[in-house]
């Protein structure tokens, strides 16, 4: 029984897209396992794994003891035995107890073994803020993983991508850190065509989501929606923004980015993570290296401030919003 039922098109949320994608991956390959805290009966605190244990059993949808190193470490062993574990980290801020296993074991196993031991693991992390949560529930740890060779890092931004990207990540023979914008889980719906043999965009590809000529705005995860809204608002004032959903953070897919910036001459990167050494730093550095003579202004960065994530009553001011993106666009244009 598939979540797709019999209709070919559904209106789904990101949460449902991910759920359906996981379900389909589990149907397609019985080596795929789901593991983590509360992923079983509860279906995860965000219900992304809802119903999977019921349908695939406790051997394939595993409630783990409360220990993230243990979860990722046992997933390493399962991967070595030929399984394809999909690990759920309950919240971004709780990935750090597993950090050693991720950066020293998961990331290095293939290299250490000179290709003999594959590590086809997906580590799903609901990330980012905007849900009014308490400390440690709104972190954006992506730069740390992107800095780690051996890992691949992607971020989905919408329900349809959620459905396809999770399947592609599971099919990938390398470990993938899979970032899910938690504030989008239940926010918007999109049309998903599940039954056709669609050929989705490749996993490690960026996508131009709005064409424009004046400034290139780069975003991923929760910021894509904001970048699009900013483009809409800017259009009203006669500015034409091109918006790119980066989708893959490691490797970066610079092709569409460089092509766009060569045309616009200006770029703004936005993310929730701290600006200092965030993805924006790398992207700015690469754009400048590659498009030095095309740039009319330095690449400008919008991001979380370089403070710990604040108490939630302050998060609105902390998080990049439409206004801050537009402010950077203006500064870029005024440069």
């Amino acid at each position, binding site marked *: 029984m598939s979540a797709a039922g019999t209709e070919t098109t559904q209106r789904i949320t990101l949460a449902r897209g991910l759920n359906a994608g996981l379900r389909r991956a589990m149907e397609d390959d019985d080596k795929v396992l789901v593991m983590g805290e509360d992923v079983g009966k*509860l279906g995860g605190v965000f219900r992304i794994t809802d119903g999977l244990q019921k349908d695939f059993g406790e051997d394939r949808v595993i409630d783990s*003891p409360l220990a993230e190193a243990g979860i990722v470490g046992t997933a390493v062993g399962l991967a070595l035995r030929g399984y394809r574990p999909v690990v759920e980290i309950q919240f971004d801020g709780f990935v750090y107890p597993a950090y050693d296993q991720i950066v020293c074991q998961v990331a290095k196993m293939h290299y250490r073994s000179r290709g003999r031991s594959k590590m086809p693991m997906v580590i799903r992390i609901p990330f980012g803020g905007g849900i009014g949560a308490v400390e440690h529930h709104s972190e954006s740890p992506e730069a740390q993983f992107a800095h780690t060779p051996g890992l691949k890092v992607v971020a989905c931004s919408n329900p349809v991508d959620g459905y396809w990207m999770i399947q592609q990540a599971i099919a990938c023979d390398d470990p993938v850190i899979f970032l899910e914008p938690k504030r989008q889980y239940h926010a918007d719906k999109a049309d998903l065509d599940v039954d056709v043999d669609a050929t989705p965009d490749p996993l490690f590809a960026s996508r131009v989501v709005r064409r424009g000529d004046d400034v290139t705005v780069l975003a991923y995860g929760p910021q894509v929606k904001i970048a699009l809204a900013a483009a809409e608002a800017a259009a009203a004032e006669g500015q034409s923004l091109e918006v790119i959903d980066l989708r893959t953070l490691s490797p970066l897919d610079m092709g569409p980015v460089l092509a766009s910036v060569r045309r616009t001459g200006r770029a703004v990167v936005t993310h929730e993570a701290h600006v200092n050494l965030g993805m924006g730093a790398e992207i700015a550095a690469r754009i400048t290296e590659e498009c030095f003579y095309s740039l009319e202004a330095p690449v400008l960065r919008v991001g979380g*401030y370089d403070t710990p994530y604040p108490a939630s009553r302050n998060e609105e001011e902390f998080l990049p919003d439409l206004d801050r993106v537009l402010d950077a666009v203006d500064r870029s244009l005024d440069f």
Partner: protein
Amino acid sequence: MNELVQLLTPEGERVHPPDHDQDFDAETLRGFYRDMVLVRRIDTEATALQRHGELGLWAQLLGQEAAQIGAGRALRAQDHVFPTYREHGVAYTRGIDPLDLLGLFRGVDHGGWDPAQKHFGHYTIVIGAQTLHAVGYAMGMQRDGVIGTGDPDRDAAVVAHFGDGASSQGDVNEAFIFAASYNAPVVFFCQNNQWAISEPIERQSRIPLYQRARGFGFPGVRVDGNDVLATYAVTQAALQRARDGEGPTLVEAYTYRMGAHTTTDDPTRYRLNADLEHWKLKDPIARLEVYLRRHGLVDDAFLADLKSEADALGHHLREGCKAMPDPPPTAIFDHVYAEETEELRAQREGFVAYRETFEAHHPQEVAR
């Protein structure tokens, strides 16, 4: 289950275990009762405040009042506590205004009290991390010469709180190792409320948790965590051991999470109602009330006064919570460092300047 230390049965009968029996005077017993009633009221009010949108979240302690009051009242002023996010009852025994507990859940701060002054650390959300802090703090006490001097006003100990789920974290087990290795004056107080969100205790351990300690070389005791007398007696003994320089103890307070994990949780998805009904019969407040009434230790006047006191507390919380101001936007930048960096100062100034550009356009919006 005779491994469970109990002084007061669910039916409100006083029993006398060989090891931890203790006499309590009427005043003390009434005090425990009052504490538990007030703490439950704090919990109920906070839950209601969450329902009314005044709090973003609340972690309920319903059912765990005896464990927390027993543990909290066994402390001396100089002892130090490292809590999880659910120790509202212990916080109350440390003299923290319950209103200060709400800030974290309302989202106006990460904790509203001074840990050094209240001898009660900040709520720690990353599961288990605080148990290591507790051991380190206890190592500091050793170095300060406040262990085993025989002076009751000087000798001190630390309590590390954690849950049954937390017992699986590496940090907690490392805390056991460091405490044993240094013979640190720390009581590991585990409230086994039998659930870690949706996961039952059996996922974390197939044997009673208190037995974990033996494997690390120090004693473990399981106490009826719904029995405030037993919890008090067992914690007091463990604290005294620690203060005397005899090292760590693990206390497993066997209890039950009668509420949801937090206000966002839905326990009907993963546990049986019958289970909850069963545990309602073991309610920590009810059993002490039965005992007190049966022995004529409380009268209607006392109960009426307590009710007024609880109502006043509820009022204080409701009004106080609603009046709690949002932090100013620039609070984001405060206290990142003890010695602020120029970099951050510049960022703060940029933030202020940026907001001022808006103020010019929409003065009200920014004012809040």
